């Protein structure tokens, strides 16, 4: 027994010779480009190819990075034209001094026109390769993806990191804000539900740029067919599940009020109506606080609370209904009704599966909102200017 260990230890020093050059998987850090964002755009010449832009973060120490922040940007954009992602990557690796380190990639941004054209073949590499990770964010850029990647931001130098931090804050508001490759892929695999991806646009000019999320791109199978505006996005998120900390402004003939929704969650019930169509019931219960009040003069205490909660319920219900109408107009099952049907009523689902689009367009959505108004902030009634303290 001891002899074997001596031999093994003796042979153990053999690999020393190999190590100086490093072995198969050994990539020194200074021989790597750290990819933080990938942008895919449709190329003008032939629509077969696509422009692949890789955003490389230049190694800089976050702490000491103050002095050269203004001058040179902290990112390099590597561009190439290729039919698929893998070709592009190999080409980039070939004619650049360093190989691409992809696991740190934060976001995949698709150009708007590429998205419209269909992306299944383009992103297959992201699902299959071990290097691409499933929690990469997927986004659609308004216009060209390359612009978003090469935007000069004041705060975080690298826009890829900026986006991932932005989405990180959003996901604090609601778990449904996660538009990752994983969710995109699971919806792609469903026969009926349509994947979504946030739309991102660049604001401001030359080196004072900022990034903004304004709406959700709606995909049918793998083609982008439409877009939800920012407000519709918010109400879509409401109807998908639980939301924390967002606000809603509502108009009413007596006055306008801004409500601060502390917690809202939606449960859905699927019912099949006699005539074969579907009826979906959204039971929404929300804790709402009054943020700002103007108007509603002459109402006090209980009566004021009642009207305000009624106002809140109507506005929530209205917002959700509009988004649903928009979805039906796009004929895209963004609410994953198909999946709920499959789970709850598998037999009927078999029948409906073929002509789901037609069934979806006839779905009737009934939204029942129950609002609780626990606190009204520091002051109870609306501030009636001028009355002063004559009555109570």
């Amino acid at each position, binding site marked *: 027994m001891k002899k074997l*260990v001596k031999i093994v230890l*003796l042979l*153990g020093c053999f690999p020393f010779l190999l190590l100086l050059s490093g072995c198969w998987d050994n*990539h020194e850090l200074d021989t790597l480009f750290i990819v933080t964002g990938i942008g895919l755009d449709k190329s003008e010449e032939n629509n077969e190819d696509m422009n692949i832009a890789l955003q490389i973060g230049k190694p800089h120490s976050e702490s000491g990075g103050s002095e050269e922040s203004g001058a040179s940007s902290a990112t390099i954009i590597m561009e190439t034209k290729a039919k698929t992602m893998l070709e592009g990557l190999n080409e980039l690796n070939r004619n650049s001094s360093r190989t691409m380190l992809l696991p740190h990639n934060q976001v995949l941004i698709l150009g708007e026109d590429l998205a419209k054209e269909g992306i299944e073949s383009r992103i297959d590499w992201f699902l299959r390769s071990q290097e691409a990770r499933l929690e990469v964010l997927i986004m659609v850029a308004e216009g060209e993806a390359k612009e978003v990647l090469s935007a000069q931001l004041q705060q975080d130098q690298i826009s890829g*990191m900026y986006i991932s931090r932005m989405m990180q804050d959003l996901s604090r508001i609601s778990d449904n804000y996660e538009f990752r490759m994983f969710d995109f892929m699971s919806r792609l695999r469903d026969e009926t539900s349509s994947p979504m991806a946030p739309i991102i646009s660049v604001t401001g000019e030359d080196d004072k740029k900022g990034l903004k999320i304004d709406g959700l791109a709606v995909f049918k199978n793998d083609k982008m067919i439409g877009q939800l505006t920012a407000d519709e996005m918010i109400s879509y998120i409401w109807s998908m599940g639980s939301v924390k900390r967002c606000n809603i402004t509502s108009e009413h003939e007596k006055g306008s009020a801004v409500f601060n929704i502390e917690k809202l969650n939606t449960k859905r019930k699927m019912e099949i109506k006699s005539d074969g169509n579907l009826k979906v019931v959204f039971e929404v219960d929300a804790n709402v606080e009054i943020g700002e009040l103007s108007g509603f003069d002459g109402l006090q205490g209980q009566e004021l609370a009642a009207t305000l909660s009624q106002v809140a319920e109507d506005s929530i219900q209205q917002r959700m209904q509009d988004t649903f109408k928009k979805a039906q107009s796009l004929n895209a099952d963004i609410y994953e009704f198909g999946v709920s049907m499959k789970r709850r009523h598998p037999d009927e689902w078999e029948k409906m599966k073929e002509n789901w689009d037609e069934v979806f367009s006839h779905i009737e959505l009934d939204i029942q909102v129950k609002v609780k108004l626990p606190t009204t902030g520091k002051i109870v009634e609306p501030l009636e200017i001028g009355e002063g303290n004559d009555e109570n």
Partner: protein
Amino acid sequence: MIFKFISRKIKFLLHAAKQKESDVEKEEPEKKEITKDSVKKQLSSNVSNLKKRLSNSSDLKIHYFRTGKDGCYTGALAFIDGLVSNTLITESILRPLTVWEAQSEQEPDEEKLMDGVIEQALCSGEIEKILELPQAVAGCLSGDTVLFMEGCASALVISTKGWDKRSVSEPQSETVVRGPREGFTENLRTNTSLIRRKIKSGKLHVENMKIGRKTQTDICLMYLEDVVSSDVIRTVKSRMKQLDVDAILESGYIEEYIEDAPLSPFPTVGYTEKPDVAAGKILEGRIAIIVDGTPFVLTAPMLFVESFQTTEDYYTRTIYASLMRVTRFIGYLITIFAPGIYISLSDFHQEIIPTTLLFTIANAREGTPFPVFVETLIMVFAFEIIREAGIRLPRPVGQAISIVGALVMGDAAVSAGLVGAPVVIVVAITAVSAFLVPSQSDSVSMLRVAMMALASFTGWYGLAMGSLAILLYLGSLTSFGVPYFDGFSWNHNLQDSLVRMPLWTMVKRPKYIAEGNITRIGKIDPPLRPHKKEEGEDEDL
């Protein structure tokens, strides 16, 4: 060419292993004295004989005296100056002899003269009558005085040891915040007395033996008879018996000759400089081997877990002691795996490092010429050099050197762009945490380099396989037949390994070591258990 080198190396290893088993072939026995070496009647021949045996060394002192009534009997004292205490000689031998009034008789009967000298004259405790000259030589060499009388064919060996000994002082290597500060000294008797003072039990068995042809060092085995395991005693004694070596100067010699796995990086024989540690080990059923001339006492058998146990664990409060025990384990893991992990992270799996940190590391590594493995190897080796220099230099200078060396060297290397900053940090942590487990510090530096090599070979997979190899090798080691590493299997040893359970729970002695009565805590009445509620506190009125 490489193959020849390898085969020569392997042959050497096998030769060393074979050489240990076959008993050491005997040195040709010492040249026997031509004349019979018994003590003669004439004094002069005895003395000259003695001188020849001690090769006429200058520090051999011979003192002739006359005793008996008006000096009728002549005799001679022989001793080695420096080994004996002169006051003892004058007090217990010379003064009484001059005063001794023995009647002179016609034909001086030999027996009566010697007995008379022993009973009436000398007043020293240890007197031994000998007939052979070699015994006289041995006595002389170990600090006794030899007394010859004219006309007697026997001699007396009187114990007058008295060389200057170092007083009991605080040991350098094992400093303690709380606990006794006394340490062992070079003298065998003081060491055994220090332990005797700790364990006042009749069962504490002390056994003497002399080993080493030239040095004749006395070695003493101490153990508790009713607790020590019989086969460990048998192995230790049998291995000590067949030790026919030239010299034993330090307990390290013994350790190497009798340990189970001579070529293993892990020590299987513990050593300590503090009597309370040695006493603790003896109480747990181990054997203490005390070697004359060195303050380091060996304790066998030693388990892997012992290197994480310090005496303070048992003197400080339980929770803090367990916390320190866990920190030592973590320190041990850091020392071995930290450089390996750094190499595998920065070379193979960059995805674990958070993105922002990755940029800083990449930035730091931008200009460095060497691959990470070579870089870490240089730094680890540099730190080893500094550490060794720190120890070898005299105390005040040593401290300064190690700190200054580390700082300057690290900083200069980074600014010169030779080495990345993270490497310096990692290697610094590794070097420092090596001191958490002092007794394993030699095995650690070897394992660390092996782990680094494996990590740069196939990343974390190499590390995983390397750690498994270590675990399995540890598991297969035994220390005097006792399994060295019991892999934290499910027995009451666990109480005192990763965590030190409160004293009143540790009822049984360590599993593999103790035999016989293994309960060390009798029936303790409640107050010592955790705070007992007063009776009837929970009942309702």
